[in-house]
């Protein structure tokens, strides 16, 4: 088992993303360092458009998360509803 991770610039816009990820990934661990928030999860991490929309109360396009994205690790699979990082082995 390996961790995947995703990291965002730590700012107001990233907060709902982090909250949504924590809500959708019970095993996710959030680590803060200056300017950066990094979320680790074993094997798989999903970012769901719907959850983010519930938190921010408006429509959200998952491609918007690129704006504050810093880095990630894992295979990326992306469609209009989900942004999924995973390791298959």
């Amino acid at each position, binding site marked *: 088992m*390996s961790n995947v991770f995703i990291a965002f610039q730590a700012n107001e816009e990233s907060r709902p993303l982090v909250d949504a990820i924590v809500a959708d990934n019970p095993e996710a661990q959030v680590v803060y360092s200056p*300017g950066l928030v990094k979320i680790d999860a074993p094997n798989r991490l999903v970012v769901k458009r719907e959850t983010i929309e519930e938190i921010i109360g408006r429509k959200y396009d998952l*491609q918007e998360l*690129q704006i504050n994205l810093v880095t*990630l690790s894992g*295979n990326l*699979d992306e469609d209009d509803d989900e942004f999924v990082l995973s390791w298959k082995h």
Partner: protein
Amino acid sequence: MDKRVEKKKLDLSSRYQALTQDLQWDTSYQSMDKVFPYARYEGIRINDWSQWQDPFKMTLDVWWRQQSEKDRRLYAVLDAFAQNNGQIGVSDARYVNAVKLVLQAFAPMKYALHRSLAHSARNLPGDAARIAAQIQATEQLRHSQLTVHAASVYNKYFNGMHAAPRWHEQAWYLAPVKSFADDIASAGPFELMVAISFGFETLLSDTLYVPFMSAAAHNGDLSMVPAGFSSQSDVTRHKQAGTAMVKFLLQQDSLNIATVQRWVDKWFWRSFRLMPLVAMLQDYMVPKRVGSWKESWNTFVEAPINALFAELAPYGLKKPAGWQAACAAKDHLSHQSWNAFYGYGHAIAFHTWVPGNDELAWLDSKYPNSFDRWYRPRLTHYAQLEAAGKRFHNHSLPMQCQVCQQPMMFTEPGDGRWISYRETRHEEESFHFCSDQCQTIFSNEPDKYVQAQLASHTILHSNSNNTPEDALQASIAALGVVIGRDNGEFHGSEDDTNFTEWGGGQDMKEAQL
């Protein structure tokens, strides 16, 4: 005919597919071999380009929108930083030397990667691969320009930045970066994609742009931080494309596997040999620490690479040949690098110093297995000499590795005692290397690496009419580095006294009180 009005909005994948597919055609008035003249000589076999899938699926309109949003914010921050004299708000003027090193080493490197990727973007015969390559090419230009713009305000107030591209071209201590970039630029369109997107960006680039930028944020550098983070956000796409590219090559033909493995071995190690600069940025050059190089290595290199190669094993790809040696170096790399730069501090274009006592204690706490045993005594000795007014300078010309061009300063893997020497005879001539990996890279392509213009040799060529007392320092001065102003000891330097006079770094001094 109203069917068109009813058209459903296409989803991400189909939209991308529709907007990019099939723009290319098989030429007939000119042969495809003439249109793509560099497609074959590397020996890579591709049976079906349509199997290449870009994981990020971005059309230009989406890309323009998203990138412009990033850049609007970013340049607003740069403007605000400059208007508010942000440069005097950094933790300590020593920090600015980290900016200098990034500007000298990595902005020009990104520029070179931009041009190299344009070579792939024109010459890979697959359309989707070419689109991925050209987006990457353009973004490397973005990163280079962003770095210059973020450093621009510092250049106005601090020394050691004013001729960075020229120093990058020729300065001995930047040769590991310049030769790396030239090595990539001279490679074919397939190899250079593997080199950049996989070897450098996927395997190692996070260590430069994530933990170091976090440290920069901690030190009040609001100019470089968004530039760095924002660059790395582009690189996440390049990394996905790099991994996709490697898988694609491995799957297309089993005969590709050996070549790709050799490239992965080579480019992991070539990239790893840039890490001494990055490691010392993090451990020595940021006054307010966030984490150590070793911690970054564990988090951003060791863990993800272990996971990634578990994933790649079924494709027939093994971890890079230098993996064990690279991991074994994590206790030593930053210390050996800073030690060299300190000694040669009069022949580079930034300042060096001995860390303060609290910093030495921090280093000890982060490197319990190596710092006190091997490295602290050098630093305390330098501090004593400096206190006595006899700062240490190493006036010799450093022997360089024929391949990576780093000074031969690395010890055998996992050991702090013996410098690692490797030697190969080729056509009656001796060539020397810092490691098994550099030796292997040479042996695989001797005709490439015999061309290397090692600075410590070139300085002594009989036509250089240049053998003064300290040839290394003279070689730097010839590039417009102002001795003593752009380099040398930090304490008492113009940067140091100006910063104090401007009331810079108040914040940190107050915090210490």
